[in-house]
């Protein structure tokens, strides 16, 4: 199970759910508990009030004394060890006397109750109090009783109910409530996770598709996405297609431009070559003049070739397609074997099947074409090509058994990529173009001595 990350939408939603659900459950539980407690108390109060009314109904005034029967109709008041008992207090101006108590009050420490709270006539008081170790609800009701002689006598009816039963009822309710709420909360969390997974599934699909496009395994986002994402995926697809079409358009334009420029340059070169062949018919100054023009014509050609190559070159873009190296390499080697058929070169290809170049196909062709052409041109008989790669890395080396290069030459060849216009006439631009492509894609080029005796060119890319 992956660790919840606050940087992901899923992580944030899970954290929010984990905070919110207990909070909601807690508030809900508190509200329900409160409502039930109040309801329980009100019910208790109503019941005790009825008992009080029953007492009052049974009471009779005899002279100046209030008389109540010993046995009440409510059995709870008649039994010892009952949780309910009642007393009636006569209130004079200074003192209060218990004038009656139910049979159930016999075993209660009613002396510790005192005379009760003095209340104005007609006032009702419902509260709790401790009697010994027990807690009781107490309902007090202050009344005035008028005798036959017209004398008004104050009394207080007090009904007591042990809280234990009510507390037990509340405890049981709370237990059930918390179990249920806990179960509901857990179910909601699980349900939330399922909903999250279902809701975020299209985004995860989009991420996978984007990753495939970024790794060059797909051309576009081709999955089925919900309405909320189609605008974005459509835009990304348009962007990829636009970039691809624009590059193709550049390529065609530059091909036309190359054709337009190179043909006049070729005509000039051909005229000058013709003049050089017939050098005997020219004066010395004419020959110098022809050589100067030929040199400048060659320079124009080099700059045009180099800049056209640079202009069409791609770079390490996020949506580059992955091109398998092996078929491209085999195709170029096969073509070069034809061109250099006189040399009977032995080419050893060690290329991992999955090794791929994440970039423009034209750039890969230029890269391999220039390096292999050099190896065929300068190698005597053997060429070794080793390519290793994964979805994120590519390393390849091309070595030959030609004359190799001095350290100075290696340095110059690579540095020349920075300024092709400084190249001397006759120098090729192949390695400078290779260096440019490698730099554009953030790779590394290394020129070294080969164990075969010639030059070893190593190139590495990291697409991460």
């Amino acid at each position, binding site marked *: 199970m992956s660790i919840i990350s606050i940087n992901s939408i899923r992580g944030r939603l899970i954290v929010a759910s984990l905070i919110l659900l207990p909070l909601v459950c807690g508030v809900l539980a508190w509200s329900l508990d409160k409502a039930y407690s109040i309801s329980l108390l009100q019910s208790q109060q109503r019941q005790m009030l009825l008992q009080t009314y029953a007492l009052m109904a049974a009471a009779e005034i005899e002279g100046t004394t209030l008389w109540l029967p010993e046995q009440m109709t409510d059995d709870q008041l008649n039994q010892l060890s009952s949780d309910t008992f009642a007393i009636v207090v006569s209130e004079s101006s200074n003192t209060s006397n218990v004038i009656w108590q139910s049979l159930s009050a016999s075993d209660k420490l009613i002396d510790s109750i005192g005379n009760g709270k003095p209340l104005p006539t007609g006032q009702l008081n419902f509260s709790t109090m401790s009697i010994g170790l027990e807690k009781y609800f107490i309902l007090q009701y202050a009344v005035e009783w008028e005798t036959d002689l017209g004398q008004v006598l104050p009394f207080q009816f007090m009904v007591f109910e042990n809280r234990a039963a009510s507390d037990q009822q509340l405890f049981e309710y709370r237990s059930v409530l918390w179990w249920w709420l806990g179960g509901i909360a857990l179910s909601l969390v699980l349900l939330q996770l399922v909903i999250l997974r279902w809701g975020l599934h299209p985004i995860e699909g989009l991420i996978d598709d984007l990753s495939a496009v970024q790794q060059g395994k797909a051309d576009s986002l081709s999955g089925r996405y919900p309405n909320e994402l189609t605008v974005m995926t459509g835009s990304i697809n348009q962007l990829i297609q636009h970039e691809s079409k624009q590059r193709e358009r550049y390529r065609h334009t*530059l*091909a036309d431009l*190359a*054709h337009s420029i*190179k*043909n006049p*340059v*070729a*005509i*000039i*070169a*051909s*005229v000058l*070559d*013709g003049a050089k*062949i017939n050098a005997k018919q020219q004066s010395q100054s004419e020959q110098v003049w022809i050589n100067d023009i030929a040199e400048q*014509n*060659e320079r124009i*050609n080099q700059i045009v*070739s180099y800049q*056209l*190559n640079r202009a*069409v070159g791609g770079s390490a873009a996020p949506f580059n397609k992955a091109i398998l190296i092996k078929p491209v390499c085999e*195709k*170029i080697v*096969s*073509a070069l074997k*034809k*061109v250099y*058929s*006189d040399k009977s070169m032995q080419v050893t290809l060690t290329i991992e099947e999955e090794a791929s170049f994440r970039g423009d*196909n*034209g750039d890969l*062709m*230029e890269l*391999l*074409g*220039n390096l292999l052409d050099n190896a065929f041109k300068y190698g005597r008989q053997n060429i070794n090509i080793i390519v290793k790669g994964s979805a994120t890395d590519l390393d390849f080396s091309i070595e030959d058994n030609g004359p190799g290069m001095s350290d100075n030459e290696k340095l110059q060849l690579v540095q020349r990529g920075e300024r092709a216009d400084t190249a001397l006439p006759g120098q090729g631009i192949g390695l400078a173009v290779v260096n440019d492509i490698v730099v554009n894609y953030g790779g590394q080029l290394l020129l070294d001595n080969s164990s075969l005796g010639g030059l070893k060119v190593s190139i590495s890319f990291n697409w991460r």
Partner: protein
Amino acid sequence: MKLLIVEDEQKLRSQLSQALEQQAYKIEQAKDGEEALYMGLEYPIDLAIVDLGLPKINGVEVIKRWRKAGIVFPILILTARGNWQDKVEGLDAGADDYLVKPFHLEELFARVKALIRRFGGHASSELIFGNITIDLSAKQVALSGQSLELTAYEYNTLEYLIHHSDKPVSKKELTEHLYDQDYDRDSNVIEVFIGRLRKKLDPSGELNPIKTVRGQGYRFELTKETKG
């Protein structure tokens, strides 16, 4: 040797034709892919120089159709852009070598000679047949180390016979490959060249380097020696 130059740029086409004619090649010209396709299929061509950027049918397609039709002559492609995609596509279609524009005429001559030599099955440009040495690159022939004075037609006749020494070559074939298309085919000039070549290459009459195969034509009979 008859070369076909396929180039849409008229100025370049005529310059190349002129330069190659000076090298004693016979030239046919085509200005677009359609014309090139027809000439390659119908004319006795020994080598074609094909620009890739052609009107009507592009160079790669022309080469593909030639090869599909069984045309085997060597093909040198010319490319303006010089990118590897174009070069590999051209070579893959059936071309044998490439040149990137602009190029030096000397390089073009060298490539043309090398392709013709390779097509004739010769690995080296210096061929030795006993005391006769032929330098295909310099177009020179020496007998016992002494340079022989051959006319361009005499040399071309000899070179053609050497490149096709696996079979008798008819007078008609020699005429088609050594002369312009509108040349009078009834002429007995080939017999005259063969006679002169025999005298120059074999003054004593002992070697008999060019044999007449009755009813079929001529065949170069000497066996090539390996250098070194």
